[in-house]
């Protein structure tokens, strides 16, 4: 069985500042890792994913996440945030089966 912990429920940050959203997981098997983003009143959209290979993965809008197997982490980072990045972010893990296990979510609030 897998579990996912997102350590911060809310992260306030000023526009153009860097941000890190933390995600730790536990699993007894090799995993696939995902970050989803949910904008207000919308469903979840895939932001980026780690399946294998390079441990650093990037999204098209400037986010990146690094898979750290020894620390069982998959933290999400962006060097400079925009107001439009305000959303809720969910980390998820798959142990190779059909299910995803989601973390509790982190609300990113970007202030002008």
């Amino acid at each position, binding site marked *: 069985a897998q579990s996912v912990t997102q350590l911060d429920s809310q992260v306030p940050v000023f526009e153009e500042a860097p941000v890190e959203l933390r995600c730790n997981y536990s699993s007894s098997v090799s995993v696939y890792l995902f970050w989803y983003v949910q904008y207000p009143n919308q469903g979840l959209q895939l932001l980026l994913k780690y399946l294998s290979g390079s441990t650093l993965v990037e999204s098209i809008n400037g986010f990146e996440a690094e898979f750290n197997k020894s620390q069982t982490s998959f933290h999400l980072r962006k060097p400079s945030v925009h107001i439009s990045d305000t959303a809720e972010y969910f980390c998820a893990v798959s142990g190779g089966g059909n299910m995803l296990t989601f973390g*509790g979510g982190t609300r990113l609030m970007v202030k002008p």
Partner: protein
Amino acid sequence: DVKVTQSSRYLVKRTGEKVFLECVQDMDHENMFWYRQDPGLGLRLIYFSYDVKMKEKGDIPEGYSVSREKKERFSLILESASTNQTSMYLCASSLVAGEREQYFGPGTRLTVT
């Protein structure tokens, strides 16, 4: 463009009513899922279906049932709605093999009064 659609964005029902939430996907995915989303609790899996007429209980199936008569359609049924079922309901689909990425619908915000 891949698409998962849900029948309603907002729904208001009375306690004791039977409620149907419909989800349709156009990607020929085998797997379909129903989640509920509540503040601070993230997404919790209600039911999962891996094929037509096949279903498995998720983490919180009590008070819910599902139906999958066609591959593209997955229905969530609240037999007798209660106020503690007021929530956001999200449908998702995925392939049975490969990367396991789930594609989500826009959600249905259900209020039970």
